[in-house]
């Protein structure tokens, strides 16, 4: 089966889902590349499934948002993304700004950036993208800083990582 088809009981919609919600994919996942450049900027690319993201934005804004409609999409996206995807360090928390998006048939890539003087070693991350909609959602983040690489996997049971550049487990 396609993973989209089976969702545990919590994750389904009845009246609010527009007819035509599509199962264009088979499982629940996002994947982000977070690179902190030498000048202290976080350059972020997040890959999501468009139908899942549209459903989240519909709930977040109370209206239908189509990924291909770039203006409405960007303004709906950013508050949502900043709520569910953030680094923090001390009292600081990221507020990403929109750089752009690429929408394809299967995935949407969202590009955002933020000034972030703190290094990744001194940062933690909260990532609960879509876990309230899809219990099986798995969010992977690959971090890059100064040639060092690390990965963290977030899910409904792990929405926060304190040591981003150290091996998980």
């Amino acid at each position, binding site marked *: *089966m*396609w993973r989209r088809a*089976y969702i545990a009981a919590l994750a389904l919609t009845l009246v609010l889902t527009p007819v035509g919600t*599509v*199962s264009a994919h*088979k499982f629940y996942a996002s994947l982000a590349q977070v690179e902190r450049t030498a000048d202290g900027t976080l350059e972020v690319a997040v890959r999501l499934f468009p139908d899942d993201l549209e459903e989240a934005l519909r709930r977040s804004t109370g209206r239908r948002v189509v990924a291909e409609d*770039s203006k409405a999409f960007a303004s709906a996206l950013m508050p949502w993304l900043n709520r569910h995807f953030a680094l923090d360090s001390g009292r600081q928390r990221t507020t990403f700004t929109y750089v752009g998006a690429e*929408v394809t048939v299967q995935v949407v890539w969202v590009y955002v950036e933020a000034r972030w003087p703190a290094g990744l070693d001194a940062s933690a991350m909260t990532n609960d993208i879509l876990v309230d*909609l899809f219990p099986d959602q798995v969010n992977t983040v690959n971090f890059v800083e100064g040639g060092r690489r690390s990965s963290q996997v977030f899910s409904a049971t792990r929405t926060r990582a304190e040591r981003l550049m150290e091996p998980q487990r």
Partner: protein
Amino acid sequence: MTLSSLVPNRRGIVIAMTLLAMPALAPAQTTLVNPVDKFKQLEEILPTPNDQRTASGAPGHKYWQQRADYVIDVELDELNRRITGKETITYRNNSPDALTYLWLQLDQNLFRKDSDTNLTRTAPSMSGGFRGREPEVADPSSPQFRGPRMAYNSLEGLLASMTFEGGHNITAVTDAKGAPLAHTIVKTMMRIDLKQPLPPQGVFVFNVAWNYNINDQKRLGGRSGYEHFPKDGNDIFEIAQWFPRLAAYTDVNGWHHKQFLGSGEFTLEFGDYLVRITAPDDHVVGASGVLQNPLQVLTAAQRDRLAQAATAANPVLIVTPAEARENEKEKSTAKKTWIFKADNVRDFAFASSRKFIWDAQGHMVDGNPARVTAMSYYPNEGNPLWEKYSTAAIIHTLNVYSRYSFAYPYPVAISVNGPVGGMEYPMICFNGPRPEEDGTYPERTKYGLISVVIHEVGHNYFPMIVNSDERQWTWMDEGLNTFLQYLSEREWEDDYPGGAEPRSIVEYMQSSMQDPIMTNSETVQQLGPNAYSKPATGLNILRETIMGRQLFDMAFKEYSMRWKFKRPEPADFFRTMEDASGIDLDWFWRGWFYSTDHADQAIDGVKLYTVDTRNPETEKALQKKTRDTAPESLSDQRNAKLPKVVDARPDLKDFYNTYDDLDVTERDRKMFADMVAKLEPKEKELLGTTANFYVVGLRNHGGLVMPVILKIDYTDGTSEEVRIPAEIWRRNPVFVEKMIVTPKEIASLTLDPHLEIADVNLANNSWPARPAKSRFQLFKQERPRNPMQQLERKPAGQ
């Protein structure tokens, strides 16, 4: 500088080689690593071959499997949304073992309130506040602040699962004579105790009666269920996992009674089915198998249209959209019984609704003895997409999959539109995509529909016929099927979106948190990439880069033919692919299926050697040039201006003040002439070689051993590609050197130029080094910076 590396020729005479200074990375230290792990055969990892499963990956001479034939009467109670059934099962014990009990699967028990699925569900995210490290200043009016909350649908689904009375009610279990049989229900399994053990080759006939409430698929989820359409008050029923089914009993695991938790799918036995489905008489019913009583359930017009469809070039409507709309109004309470027969299937599913449009087209698949009828059932809400694409996609799937595996052996292939997004059963599958209410649809929906139909119809081959154990090894059906889906999509149209390209899996491969593919389905962390994308991409790499299409296709077809209507294990696939192709792939299975290593190859140092001509006129001049063009140190530059004693007093100079050891002397010339005089003609020729000898250092940072594909660009504008099998890493999987001998001068080198091996870091793939831009940087460089422009801009591809 003359560091000499000596290359012996056959007679043991050495030719001196000269290393020329290269603008290269410093050659890194070579550490020899024990290579055994990467290329060691999988002997102790794969199960020992036996009489059931051979070392070549084929079924053995004592291969056996059980069989269960079913005769079922079932009624769909539309008003109460309830299934009531009774069945007679004829179970054949083909194993060499006497069985004292039988196990049956009761999948509907997944919906019981006390099911493991419900009990083990972890708390939904309440997504409130700032979790974890709380900022000292938390402003509740800030958009970043959240109070505790729960998604509307989460709450609704939770409440629905608390009130739904789901699960199989078993009302009778009796033997052939009607005497009750002792039975015990263990969650989603039921054990029937036999009065006498069932001996090898014995046959046991028994009856089960049951009923259950059908789940509202849109609220409760599941692989089947009903969908309600408030506009016209009708439902679409997609009914599957609905009757108590024999659990599999096999040579590998004995009884497969691993509980059904919802993620892992099924392990089933083949058998023949005769199923009588009673439904409201204005419903249209589609099912696994062939309709036996068209005279009773179809109108004369419908029978005519079906006859016409058998040889039609395009789908013929058996029930038209207008007729379906009329049916929607009827709400008949009378009943009708549809009889279906399905031979040699491992399961049986059906769909029923008065909303269905029904189209059909007979199709002769290459190599098939008989026509297959491809059919689609869908509501008006599915058009215009369904009438255009569903049946066409079924036929395309049969054509492509049959070519890569075996001719489709069943008489019908059906695609149904209802609540389920995508789920496969023998001969019938459920597919979700629909257009918008106004009949328009985004591109995504169109390709989503075509892809899901290909995928679910494709499951007829894997695992409906090549009957792998889905509950244990999701990749064996999903990975293989996703791979063939990808091949089918390439043949639908040019530039069909998506696919199993290695570059698409790079982000997953580089993440450090993965499970190997060879991990049980229910415990895999990221089942999607793990069981679908990674195995499919691996097969694509095997086919395109490692084995080649011809060898791969032959071996893959052999696997399909060997295990058609049988039950393969992972080792049977691994062994057959090697056995049929003659290519040792253990290193690939080990790396791609049993480990989480990724590919990251790097060019690590390039050295250039030329042949030392031994001619003092040539060599000493070269050495002089090297010496004289060597950089002068800062001290030397400053010291040059200082007055020197020997300049003031030339009498202090002697022989050594004018001697240059790189001047050619008469003695040098004589020695060279003497040496040349002693050489044989062949040796003289070798000495005259003007080729460049490049030694390229290759480092494997990722751990995964993969072929090395190296593109060489020369300064004269030409280029060539060297394809080196993965075995180059067999003695040292971390660092190797490869020599390139060429009369030309190399301008640049590029590893993996066609992005074939899912190399996760392209920054170290070039010589001279070329910075690799991240996805973010590539995107940004092509886009205007201004956010207002961004907002006005059309998205890519529009």
